């Protein structure tokens, strides 16, 4: 997505509560959390359930499958991206939504069709691996 002269995309600094997520992407897994009391699947990570307040939660590997919920195609210049590029919201199969970029297709309204099936793919930045999505 970014050419050689571009700066790398802004990378996250994991915190103790999000470390499992970023450890997961490094081994090719998209990880979510589930409340063992009320069953809520949630994202982004935290060590308790935002549905019930329970601290009785677990981390699990998600399917990596989802659909295209909504997006914009940014036309302004960005130091790390070649415009135009999509910024998308993905509806994950397990329930939560997450922001990402859709890669592996034209960045046009014609190619980016709402509700199209997507699957996770990973972009390696060394210590940090970013989850992206592509048409499934």
């Amino acid at each position: 997505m970014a050419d050689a002269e571009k700066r790398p995309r802004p990378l996250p600094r994991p915190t103790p509560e999000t470390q499992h997520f970023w450890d997961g992407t490094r081994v090719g897994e998209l990880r979510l959390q589930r409340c063992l009391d009320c069953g809520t699947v949630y994202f982004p990570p935290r060590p308790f359930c935002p549905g019930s307040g329970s601290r009785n939660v677990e981390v699990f590997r998600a399917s990596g499958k989802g659909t295209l919920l909504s997006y914009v195609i940014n036309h302004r210049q960005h130091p790390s991206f070649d415009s135009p590029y999509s910024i998308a919201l993905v509806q994950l199969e397990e329930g939560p939504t997450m922001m990402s970029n859709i890669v592996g297709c034209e960045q046009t309204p014609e190619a980016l069709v709402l509700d199209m099936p997507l699957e996770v793919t990973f972009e390696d930045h060394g210590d940090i691996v970013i989850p992206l999505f592509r048409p499934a």
Partner: protein
Amino acid sequence: MTVAIVGAAETTQLGKIPDTSQIELHADAALNAMADAGLTPADIDGVATAGESPVGIAHYLGIAPRYADGTSVGGCSFMLHVRHAVAAIEAGMADTVLVTHGESGRSGIGRGGRGGGGGAGLPDQFEGPYGGMGPTTMFTIGVLRYMKQYGMTHEQLATVAVVQREWAGMSPRASYRDPITVEDVMASRMIAYPFHLLECCLVTDGGGALILTKAERAKDFPQKPVYIMGTGESVETPMVSQMKDLTSSQAFRIAGADAFKSSGISHSDVDHLMVYDAFAHLPIWGLEDLGFCERGEAAGFIEDGNTRPGGKLPLNTNGGGLSYMHSGMYGMYALQESVRQMRGTAPAQVPGAEVSVCLGVGGMFAASGCIVMTNSEPA
């Protein structure tokens, strides 16, 4: 004495806590206090905090509040939060207020995330990497979903900007006053599909101020009094990607419902409406979330001329953020126009207007405040 403290707790650990980020310190203390009181997040309807935003704390804890206090004046912020909470509870603005503190003062874990990427805050980690360029990409990201769900057309979205330019044309202080057409909007530069330049707010400089006092004193002042009939507020999430429903703002719905309830008005009482329009879809969300239109019908409502000069619900009569001005925190200018309309001094005055509703937004649907004003003297 009408208000009591029923839950109180510190974090599970104190001292040196390198395995816990700052927001989790807030949450840990909050969960401990809730356990102390026998409550869960669903029982809390007010959030006050400093150091972190009450938006972030409410969303992190899973609270949908109708009262939020982010007063941040240093180490005594929590004393002010308690005082404000007493007033809020006595006024019926909230029943159960949570005041939180958490600070990774020694270990510095998860401090200072501002959402621009490269940081440790949740927006930095989970939205920052994807090339967002602030509001033009983040505020607008749910609109394609709305268009698919309700059949709104690109032309209808453009019509919002066209109608507001009509109002701006009547306002000498508006930044842009020349009439525009739907074709002009559609031909303007693409900023972030589906948004064109003329569907995005201006970037300008300015300021505003308000002075409030008791209604019984109001007639001693030189200007016609404008009375506050009711108010509402809420916060949802600091991350647009985590909105419960992209096609509607939970914060708008909670703030609007409280404003209507506390003022005792119905929709037919409203003569004038302001909806903070950072982008052209905001008035559509506002009309629906305040209950003036059914879901999916606001774009047609605007297209049919109901919010134009002479329409039955004059909306954004200064031209709004799209044409009047937008300094970044436009809410002050929406309030100023509501005051002018209630004083009868607006350049595009709505004849005989007695009730004005003013709906504001903060962040990308992160927060909302709603104020109902009238020029009718309280009975």
